[in-house]
């Protein structure tokens, strides 16, 4: 039985995963935190916490609040910085068979460039995922991913600095996600992750203020699955690059929906908090599905939909 997928078909090196189930950035730390609970080498790939040029402390508390079938988060990219990632984490990853993809986040084009350059040729790094849901400090704080031109420019900056496969992670908080997807593909993205968290809010009735100090926060979890599925479907129709579905995936059934909507792979985020075995259960569920369908490959099993 073959569950493998290729995420960078246009790269010479490619980015082949043994199976299409990845962990989503920010929900699986640097890959080590869950290692005593989860057989991480069985995962299709691990995506690291978002990494910035310098270490970041993150946002004030409270950083999370639960909402119906979901959660809002405003972590503020707390991370150890790219240097520590290269020095302390990558050597561990180099010994693993599971590919590790580093998620990067910058405030300016130049920061994205330097982040990509810092990862070039580092053993243990299998690819880069570019988080374009960050505000562009040089342009009044407008989010890179909300504008096709800015999104394409970030992609070009990263592309120029690295020979690694480049995945661009889109924000769902835009009017027409297809325009951004097409711009990013044209700028050289090998694959697209659809999508990051949806903006949302919750109020503290006692304090009569938003629970999260910044007000807005990112909504994730089962509550967003139909929304993310719709966006993944839209993007898959608009580009030829592989699409990685992400948003509320908690079961093999959810994963199959994204695959049928045209995604090549999926990422599991919040569901891991609920059940650390979620990704493994999804892989096993996909294997069972192939068996039931009497198919040898994933493509055969789900390739009928796409409309």
């Amino acid at each position, binding site marked *: 039985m073959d569950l493998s997928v290729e995420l960078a078909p246009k790269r010479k090196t490619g980015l082949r995963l043994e199976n299409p189930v990845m962990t989503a950035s*920010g*929900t*699986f*730390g640097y890959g080590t*935190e*869950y290692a*005593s*609970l989860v057989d991480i080498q069985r995962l299709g790939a691990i995506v690291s*916490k978002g990494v910035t040029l310098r270490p970041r*402390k*993150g946002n004030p*508390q*409270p*950083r*999370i*609040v*639960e909402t*119906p*079938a*979901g*959660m809002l*988060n405003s*972590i503020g990219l*707390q*991370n150890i910085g790219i240097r520590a990632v290269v020095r302390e984490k990558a050597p561990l990853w180099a010994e693993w068979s599971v590919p590790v993809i580093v998620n990067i986040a910058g405030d300016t084009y130049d920061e994205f460039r330097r982040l990509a350059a810092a990862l070039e040729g580092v053993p243990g790094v299998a690819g880069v995922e570019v988080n374009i849901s960050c505000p562009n400090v040089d342009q009044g704080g407008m989010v890179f991913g909300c504008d096709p031109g800015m999104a394409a420019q970030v992609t070009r900056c990263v592309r120029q600095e690295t020979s690694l496969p480049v995945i661009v992670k889109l924000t769902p908080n835009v009017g027409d996600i297809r325009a951004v997807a097409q711009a990013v593909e044209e700028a050289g993205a090998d694959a697209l992750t659809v999508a990051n968290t949806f903006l949302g809010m919750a109020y503290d009735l006692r304090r009569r203020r938003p629970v999260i100090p910044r007000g807005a926060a990112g909504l994730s*979890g*089962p*509550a967003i699955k139909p929304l993310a599925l719709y966006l993944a479907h839209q993007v898959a129709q608009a580009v030829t690059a592989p699409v990685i579905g992400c948003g509320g995936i*908690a079961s093999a059934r959810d994963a199959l929906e994204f695959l049928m909507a045209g995604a090549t792979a999926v990422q599991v985020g*919040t569901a*891991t*908090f*609920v*059940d*650390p*075995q979620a990704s493994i259960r999804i892989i096993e569920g996909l294997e069972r599905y192939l068996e039931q369908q009497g198919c040898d490959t994933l493509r055969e099993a789900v390739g009928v939909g796409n409309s």
Partner: protein
Amino acid sequence: MRQLRADVLSNQEVMPGINLMWLRAPDIAQEAQPGQFLMVRCGDGFDPLLRRALSIHRLGTSAPGGAAQGCALLYGLQGAGTSLLGRMRPGDALDVLGPLGRGYTVHRASRNLLLIAEGWGISPLVALAESQVARGRSVTLLAGAPEAGHVYPQDLLAAEIELVAATVDGSLGHQGAVVDLVGDYWSWADEVYACGPWSMYQELARATSGQWPRKPVQVLAEMSMACGVGACFACTIETRRGPRLSCREGPRLLLSDLLL
């Protein structure tokens, strides 16, 4: 750290709105240290979604039927998650993750331990008290509650543990805050441990700043958590020594390191 389905052995209200649940969880009971916690899945649907952090309340032999490998939780019925826990019956299975975090530490040479609790903060301190009297140490447990009915039932505690109550309405023990009692025991204590709401830590910092000699106070600093294992960075606490993850680098921190 493991994830397992633990059988519920008993689940009873022991104070108004506060339940004590015993689980059969030999693997966890063997590893766990007082002050550590479990991430508990409440129900099996998506609402509530996230696991709830609950301190390990007791370990070992006091489980119903004398089951040697038990582990107890003490929880207030606060919201959706704990309400679902309140409905579980003996024989049901609970999906738990743990033991997690860093628990209290006791210096080998210490003889006399002072424990200070408010509300369900008493939960982890009972585990600490029981494990230490079993090792021959003297333990005084100061317990603050709104009124007598909310003071931890003495008959559930090992006889060697001295429980001193403070109630807001004076219906049992000292009338006032539990922190008022600390001065009486300060010089006796070799080490001091606390668990309670943030407001108690503020009062405690004020009350102990004038005490001599200085003694480190180990507290459990609890923040909302999503993963419980250090992967999501939700539970970061700013301390005088920099940011600390409550779930992995805590929940035990020194009172003097908290920015209160």
